[in-house]
């Protein structure tokens, strides 16, 4: 397969998150935060390159927002090039990873960072359509590809 983006910019990985003493204390309420969501998705493999979404800056912690009170999580992701045909697959991988990792009370929105993809609206609409996502995840070939992306 021909690579769409031959020489993507590669960025440094962030350091491991240090665990504080209150986090291991069960008597302290510890809501989800942006860093925890980032930790769940940063190691997802790019479908084209042997690099993580973090190293390509496809996902970044400052493009994640968590609203614990309303159980809402919003993740924006940035394709490396505006015509990236893998955008839907990357979005699906992020969605599936969060679906499998988070409690079901959360409403997760995964969208392309505004202005970074030529078919931004169409991709966002597909990713938001839970019926299409559910049907896609019943496709054995597609789920295999996604599992490869989210395997750590």
């Amino acid at each position, binding site marked *: 397969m021909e690579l769409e983006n031959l020489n993507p910019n590669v960025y440094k990985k962030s350091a491991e998150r240090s665990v504080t003493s209150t986090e291991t204390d069960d008597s302290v309420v510890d809501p989800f935060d942006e860093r925890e969501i980032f930790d769940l998705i940063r190691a997802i493999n790019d479908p084209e390159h042997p690099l993580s979404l973090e190293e390509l800056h496809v996902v970044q912690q400052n493009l994640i927002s968590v609203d614990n009170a309303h159980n809402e999580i919003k993740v924006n992701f940035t394709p490396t090039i505006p015509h990236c045909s893998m955008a839907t697959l990357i979005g699906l991988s992020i969605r599936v990873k969060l679906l499998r990792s988070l409690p*079901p*009370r959360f*409403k997760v929105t995964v969208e392309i960072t505004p202005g970074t993809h030529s078919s931004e609206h169409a991709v966002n*609409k597909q990713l*938001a*359509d*839970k*019926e*299409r996502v*559910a*049907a896609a995840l*019943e496709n054995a070939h597609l789920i295999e590809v996604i599992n490869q992306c989210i395997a750590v």
Partner: protein
Amino acid sequence: MGHLELQHTLTGHKGRVWGADWHPKNNALATCGEDKTIRLWSQEGNRWITKTILSDSHTRTIRDISWSPCGQFLASASFDATTAIWDRKSGQFECNATLEGHENEVKSVAWSRSGSLLSTCSRDKSVWIWEVAGEDEFECAAVLNAHTQDVKKVTWHPNEDILASASYDNTIKMYKEDPADNDWMCVSTLTGHTSTVWSISFDATGNRLASCSDDRTIKIWQSYLPGNVEGIATPDGDAVWKCVCTISGHHTRSIYDISWCPHTGLIATACGDDIVRIFKEAENSTKIAPVFEIVTAQHGAHSQDVNTVKWCPSTPGLLLSTSDDGEAKIWKYES
């Protein structure tokens, strides 16, 4: 203000419950979902119990189910691209016909008021009309390719052989048979929603239609027949549908289903914010400028997205809901 009283919680499905339908006559209903099964429930005393599980016909998610008006047949639409027809001629429910033709996921199935026609729709953008041709025989009467995207829902007019469909292309379309050549054709396109139209429901007269959308609004559409007193032009001699009301500001996520009760006139909605809402037409409402008020919002009706709402055809005020949380619930609306 009214409120919804939870009467029963129906548990048993594994995973998301997508569709549900009340039996037209008896105290019975059917549910279907991600676990590829159909559950038939009936009321015994004060409990709803699973009477039968139908599990050997579909290989993927069952998205929607529909009882025929006579209550003898059940149709199920699946992501496996087929529609199954079940009956109990042998004493227990069996699948005696499988309708094939759609290229991919079938999203919705509906019987016409007489039970002689069946409609299905799919992600393949088409709407099919099937004629009941005899025992366990169905003939394709039309393949309608009016939509430009995924078709989410089909529903029949309550009193005439008019079909309506809702789509990912943000529009609603109406179809009827041309008496000149018996060809089905699209006679109107209702535009106004700004995202996917998930579901539609006629009122008891069929002169009004309610629609719900990913744009988080409900719209009420009014039909104007040729010669209407309002003077709305009807160029082709067909009814013209106009949006007369948009209900916004209530729903905070996608609205997946809507049901207009033929007995009470109440409108119920199923929303991705886990809430079931009930709307009632206001005192000062008129035909050309209807006004709807919210009478209750059941927060946390389910612990996840609500997928279906359906008013009971035989008992006014009874409402059925299904959810991603794996449950179906029966509610009683008290005013």
